[in-house]
Structures are given as structure tokens and as C-alpha cells.
């Protein structure tokens, strides 16, 4: 069981168990989250996405160092893909974060993407709430930028970094449109490994053609994590974006959008579950299926009939 008072006082064991409850979709997690919610809302969330090997974990590690210099308590959620075949996952992001392993001001949690669609985004958002209530001032969320869930998570962050590398096949034109659009800051990491000029020109051209939400044009920062280059610049840019969000009103607007989205998702999930339950517990569906197979009814009419029944409960 989770001792909420201990969690709020910064007990690592409790925070860790709370995140497991969320990941395992434990029935008591809703109650837990309701109790934690009043203690949330004080954290800055930074999403970090990009191809495997781009240097996301190394950047998270380096940014954590910057945050610790300002005495901020740091949470890290590092997401790696779950194998669709075995259901298992190899979570190796900690390898790059060893420097902070014993720092009580840093809490690192690795997560697998696990199965269900939308489940990852849900679990990540709730894990953020746990770490927020636990007392973190800043949370880094590392995901591999591929699926819809990962994009959803990045929408949830206050500031999203899209990490690219020169040379290694990261061509701006071929990167999925969705991923380029969520960037608040572009990071060209491994700037030591190739010519960054072409990549910068390409990004700038793309930015010239797109409209910038709230008037923030995503800046491009070059980094070399292995040589500690560009990191104070990146950190300062994160703080600049935070300030911009606050003064322009984007912060509040984003939060409202996020909350609306979150409630809508929860509602949809609940309705879906109810619907499944209702359909599996009465035989109506099967009668209708028979009628459709016999061509006495069409699928649209059947769905309308079931919807009417469902809404009248």
C-alpha cells in the first residue's frame, strides 16, 4: 500500500510503488491520483524525443547536471519500447545517467511502452503527477519519437526538445511531420560528427514555411554531450522558453488544452469500457449480427439501434 504522507514528504520507495501501480493499471490508482492531485501543478516538464541513439539519455543526463546546479529536484521518466512479441522490455537509459545514481535530488524511472494504445501516454502523464507530488521541480521525459502515444506525451510537456544528429540519416525532409511540429527547441546533438550547416538550413527553411504557434519560433541549438558543449546554451534556452510561456499566456492556455484533452480521453475510455461490458452481457449484438448476415439489416442501422439502447440506460 502507498503511504501518501510519506510520498508527499519525498519517500522514494512510495513514489516508486505509486508509479508501478499506475503502470500495472492497479484498481486503486484512481484513488491514489485523486489524493495526489491537490499537491501537483508545480513542476516544469521537458519532453526529449528523437531517433534511437541520437543522444537523448546523454542530453537528459547533461541537463540534469544543469538543473542540479540550481538545486532543482529532478525527475526522469525514460521510456523504451516493449517487445510486441514477448511483452518484455530492455530498459537501458540509466547507463548514461550513472553520475546521478546516488544523488537524492534525482529520481530516475524507466518505463516500457507496454501494450495498449493510449496506455503509455496515460501512464506517463500519471507518473508525472506522482513525481510532481513527490516534490520534483523539473521532470525530463525521454521517449523514442515514433508512435502516436509518444507524440501525445510530447504534447503534454511544457517544452519539447527534438533531438537530431548530423549525417546519420536524419534528413529533415524525411522526418515524420508530426515530430518536427512538436518541437519547441531543436537540438542538433553529436555536432562533432558531421557538418551541421545543411541540417540547420533545412530546419530554418521548414520553419520559414510554417506558422509559429504563439509567435515562438523554435531555435536550433548545437550540442556535443561527450564534450559538454552547448549545454549551458540549451539549458538557458529551456528557461527562456519557460519565461516566454509564462509571459505570453501560453502556459495557461496549454494547461487548459491539456486538461481538456485528458478529461476527454478518460471519458472516452470509460464509455468504451461500459459499452464493451454492455455488449458482452446482452445477446442483442448477436441477434443483430444474424440479421446483418441475412441481409435483413445493415451495419449502420444496427449500430444506431445499439447506440440508442446504450444511451437510454
Amino acid at each position, binding site marked *: 500500500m502507498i503511504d501518501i504522507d510519506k510520498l508527499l514528504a519525498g519517500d522514494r*520507495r512510495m513514489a*516508486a510503488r505509486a508509479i508501478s501501480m499506475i503502470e500495472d493499471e492497479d484498481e486503486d490508482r484512481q484513488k491514489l491520483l485523486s489524493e495526489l492531485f491537490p499537491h501537483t501543478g508545480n513542476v516544469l516538464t521537458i519532453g526529449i524525443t528523437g531517433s534511437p541513439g541520437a543522444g537523448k539519455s546523454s542530453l537528459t543526463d547533461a541537463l540534469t547536471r544543469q538543473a542540479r546546479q540550481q538545486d532543482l529536484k529532478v525527475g526522469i521518466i525514460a521510456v523504451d519500447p516493449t*517487445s510486441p512479441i*514477448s511483452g*518484455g*522490455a530492455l530498459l537501458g537509459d540509466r547507463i548514461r545517467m*550513472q553520475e546521478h545514481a546516488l544523488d537524492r535530488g534525482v529520481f530516475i524511472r524507466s518505463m516500457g511502452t507496454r501494450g495498449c494504445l493510449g496506455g503509455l501516454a496515460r501512464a506517463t502523464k500519471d507518473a508525472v503527477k506522482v513525481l510532481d507530488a513527490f516534490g520534483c521541480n523539473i521532470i525530463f521525459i525521454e521517449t523514442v519519437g515514433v508512435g502516436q502515444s509518444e507524440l501525445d506525451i510530447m504534447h503534454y510537456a511544457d517544452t519539447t526538445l527534438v533531438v537530431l544528429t548530423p549525417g546519420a540519416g536524419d534528413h529533415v525532409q524525411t522526418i515524420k511531420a508530426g515530430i518536427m511540429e512538436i518541437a519547441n527547441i531543436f537540438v542538433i546533438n553529436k555536432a562533432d560528427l558531421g557538418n551541421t550547416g545543411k541540417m540547420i538550413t533545412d530546419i530554418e527553411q521548414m520553419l520559414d514555411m510554417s506558422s509559429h504557434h504563439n509567435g515562438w519560433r523554435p531555435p536550433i541549438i548545437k550540442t556535443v554531450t561527450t564534450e559538454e558543449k552547448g549545454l549551458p546554451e540549451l539549458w538557458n534556452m529551456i528557461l527562456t522558453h519557460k519565461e516566454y510561456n509564462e509571459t505570453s499566456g501560453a502556459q495557461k492556455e496549454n494547461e487548459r488544452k491539456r486538461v481538456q484533452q485528458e478529461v476527454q480521453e478518460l471519458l472516452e475510455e470509460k464509455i468504451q469500457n461500459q459499452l464493451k461490458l454492455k455488449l458482452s452481457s446482452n445477446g442483442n449484438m448477436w441477434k443483430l449480427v444474424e440479421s446483418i448476415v441475412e441481409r435483413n439489416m445493415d451495419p449502420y442501422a444496427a449500430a444506431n439501434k445499439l447506440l440508442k439502447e446504450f444511451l437510454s440506460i
Partner: protein
Amino acid sequence: MARKIRVLVAKPGLDGHDRGARVIARGLRDAGMEVVYTGLHQTPEQVVEAAIQEDVDVVGLSILSGAHMTLFPKICELLRENDSEDIKVIGGGTMPEEDVKELVEKGWAAQIFTPGATLEQIAKWIYDNV
């Protein structure tokens, strides 16, 4: 959704390579577990702190350096100090038979797998004991 088993695979000690640990980590992933892998040269303190934050059920130590008789007791002691003695510690590596016996008898390791053990055996042990 069913509870997923989480395992920390760690390579404490100073010796150089982690091939064995990586093989185990991948094997347990293929057996359906979530495996947190932390890399080389872990101190007992780092192992225990990671185990707590990651809320794992099992810590698997790969030890080749011969330091097993100090590492296992140290890790158990740290787990106890952190109210986390429910996390099971298992190990693998080359160790004299009498050491294996002592580690298990004194409760410093829940199970030791000697180099002949298969991944299936290790995975089965975890599924049976978590």
C-alpha cells in the same frame, strides 16, 4: 492489465566486460520481463538505489570479479536499511561451491546460478518466486 515482473540486472565490481550480463538481460526480456540494465562498474549503493527507484521485484547480479562474498552481504544490508528486503537478490558467475552454499544459507542470495544454468531456468525461477 497484469502485473509485469521487473528485474534489475547489474554488473557490480571492477572487472571489464558485461557480455554475460547483457545476455541475461536480453534473455529475461524475451521471457516477457521488464529488465532495467544499468551498465558496468556499479557500486552496491548504486545497485540498491536503482532497485528502489525502479521498484523491481528481483535484482540479478552478474559477478566475475571474485568479490561475491562482500558484494552480496553489502547489497542485502543496504536493502534492509532501506526497508526493501522484499526485493529478491539472485546472482550468477563463477563461484566456489562452498561460497554458493554459504550465500544462500545466510540469506545473502535467494538463488545463485552457476555458469551451466540456462536462461529458461533463470526465468522460470523468477516466475516461480515473485
